[in-house]
């Protein structure tokens, strides 16, 4: 039995919000569109994933049918976008390649603007299994204080994630550091297979790390006193395409994330609160 999303009383809510006079602010914050009929969104960041994107969308429709599917096309140069649209997904077309962090954040922005209550990230390469989404939903439904549910590859004893030893070592180092910081076991901080509630969505729509975001995002969850839990999931090896992290970039990846972790620790306020100086501003002196 799937844990369904809270269904929206469509007619009532639309009638309440689509008042005849269309004030500008209302039009921005609450779109008067025919959807979402339900309040759950699956975000699929995809960069040149034409080999696998259709399978991912089909699997989502089959196994997570109460989720709207949004593919974020991160400036692909192949037919990813066309295939995704033909498969019936909504597609955000980024005008140029932003990297995984920027693509996923576009998904958060979309989810926030369209008022979704739940957002799950499912990678476009097919390594995340949409059949596991309802288990993420169950975990979140079990306790209302949980903001993020993360699917972890390393919580089951019987299953070895078939990744190169170098990558696994890196993951375990991050896991060790984050577990110490958060005083809670974090086994798989690089997993992108995560379910977010509305609080996490609004946080990450405002600020999400840039290049290799998953590890830093865990730290942000901690800084903002949100609650994250992990549940064991199975993951596949990639169906096709090329990973965003090549073997040559592993060292750079490790250093960059370590820098982000330790600087992030020292940062007083990683994200501005309402009323703070804008972190991104055109009008700043030297």
């Amino acid at each position, binding site marked *: 039995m799937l844990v369904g999303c809270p269904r929206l009383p469509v007619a009532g809510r639309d009638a309440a919000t689509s008042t005849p006079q269309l004030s500008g602010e209302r039009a921005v914050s609450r779109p008067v569109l025919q959807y979402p009929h339900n309040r759950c969104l699956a975000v699929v960041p995809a960069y040149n994933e034409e080999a696998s994107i259709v399978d991912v969308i089909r699997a989502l429709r089959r196994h997570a049918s109460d989720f709207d599917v949004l593919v*974020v096309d991160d400036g692909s140069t192949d037919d990813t976008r066309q295939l995704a649209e033909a498969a019936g997904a909504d597609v955000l077309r*980024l005008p140029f390649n932003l990297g995984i962090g920027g693509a996923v954040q576009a998904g958060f922005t979309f989810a926030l603007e369209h008022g979704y209550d739940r957002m799950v990230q499912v990678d476009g390469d097919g390594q995340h299994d949409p059949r596991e989404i309802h288990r993420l939903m169950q975990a979140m439904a079990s306790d209302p204080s949980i903001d993020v549910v993360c699917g972890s590859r390393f919580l089951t004893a019987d299953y070895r994630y078939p990744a190169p030893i170098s990558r696994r070592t890196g993951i375990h180092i991050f896991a060790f550091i984050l577990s110490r910081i958060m005083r809670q076991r974090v086994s798989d901080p690089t997993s992108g297979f995560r379910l977010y509630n509305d609080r996490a969505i609004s946080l990450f729509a405002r600020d999400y790390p840039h290049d290799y975001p998953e590890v830093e995002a865990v730290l942000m969850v901690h800084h903002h006193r949100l609650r994250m839990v992990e549940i064991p999931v199975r993951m596949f090896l990639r169906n096709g395409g090329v990973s965003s992290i090549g073997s040559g970039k592993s060292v750079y990846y490790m250093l960059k994330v370590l820098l982000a972790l330790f600087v992030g620790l020292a940062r007083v306020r990683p994200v501005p609160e309402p009323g703070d100086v804008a972190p991104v501003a055109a009008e700043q002196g030297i």
Partner: protein
Amino acid sequence: MGSRIQIVAIVGAVVLLIVVLEMVRRRRLMERYALLWLLSAIVILGLAVWQDALNKLAEAMGIVSAPNALFFVAVAFILLLLLHFSAAMSRLSDQSKVLAQRHAVLEQRIRTLEDSRLRPAGERALEREPTLLR
């Protein structure tokens, strides 16, 4: 400091000052980026003209030759400018990221609106949720 190197330093600083001011006048350089350039040109010019200050500075820093102190100050300003540009670049790339995301969200919304106008609403709903047929 020898008078030749002094003349070279003064001429260089004056040319820099004029070029920066002219670029600001032609709106090729924004004021907020010109300020640091102007400051470095003025300080270098001041030290080149005012020999006493340069000698005292060199002595205080333990630099034997006064012209080297001038080079040191110039290099320090160059590093400062580079850091300033890295910061500006970080801000710009952050801004362009946000713009790209907003652009994509708005474009998707326009496409959806156009789509729902061009076709009957029921048709699109069915397409999105084929299970409605059953």
